[in-house]
């Protein structure tokens, strides 16, 4: 098994680090939204989860 070229390896590492930021962006946006609006939707007990094709979860 051969390793990738060092320049490719370095680019992978750099881009992977940037990806962590990208993954977190929607979550950060959600936190900012909740902070700004003061909403606390998790306190709404009527929320129902949707499982689609995995509907059998509900029966457990």
């Amino acid at each position, binding site marked *: 098994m051969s390793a990738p070229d060092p320049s490719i390896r370095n680019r*992978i590492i750099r881009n992977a680090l*940037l*990806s962590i930021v990208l993954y977190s962006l*929607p979550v950060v946006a*959600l936190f900012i939204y909740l902070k700004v609006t003061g909403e606390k*939707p998790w306190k*709404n007990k009527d*929320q129902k989860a949707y499982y689609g094709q995995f509907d059998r979860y509900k029966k457990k």
Partner: protein
Amino acid sequence: MKEIVTSVFENLGSWGLSVIVLVLGITEFLVGLYDKHDWDENEKATDLICYAAPKILLAPVFAFFTLKALPVLFPGMMGIFSWVPFWFGFAIIAVADDLTQYWYHRLHHEIPWLWRFHRTHHSASYMGMAMASRQNIIYTVFFSQTYLTATLVFLGLGFPALFVKGIKSLITLSAHSSITWDKPFYKYKILHPVAWVLERLISTPATHHAHHADANDGVGHYKGNFGNMFFIWDIIFGTGLITRQYPAGYGVKHYFKEEWYVQFLWPFFKSKKVGSELALGGPEFYDEVGETGGYTVKDLKSNLPEPALHKELLEEPQYNQVAV
């Protein structure tokens, strides 16, 4: 209205996409888009088995993961994030799923030993619905974003996931289609601003066909354009190439027309085609100039078996000596 849209996407996820693939595939076939390519029996068998078999073979694996493994891995956490507002859930799922697939895909191109698990998808010398699902079984089993998205559905993001999955499937299928729906956007000047946004945001036939090209020639760009639903990852990471043109040829340069069952089941089965990347002792990969990853030409010559034809000829009796 919400019920109607939900119903559309529910049906899309259950049977709708299969119908779209079928209708698009028949259209491509009827307008002759496969005629000019070498779509022989071996290619047809590879396309068909890769499309059908995972649906049967892997359904129990995914069912086990979603119904049995997740409740054990995340006890008491089922549906805990169902309160997340729809559009935030949509963004979380879209980024988590598609960025993970971008990486899964990119690493199979950039890490030499992973290439052979993805090669089957690139060995087709044509684009279209026939080859859109063409993947080696191992590549499909370890499709990392499938497990990540299933986990997010378990945690309560099932509703936005339904829409992300539907939209993503439509984009990726249409990007593989040989029906180049994006052409009018490049042809008519008035549509150029739309094209500019579209080709940077999502995968189009032009950018994804370039990824399937058999050459890196300025239009073809098989060392990039890894995005599946979003092309924006390629823009951010500098792996994208936008030319608004379509490559002259598709496939891999060193294609030996490996047996359909080998393309689907490598490394459990090895190709009998000498010199193939899928053969026993074959190179990890050939790059565009014919050199091989991890192998020198000298290694190749010493490691590869003699061509079968040559061996047979050597074993033939010398007729001039046995003639009476």
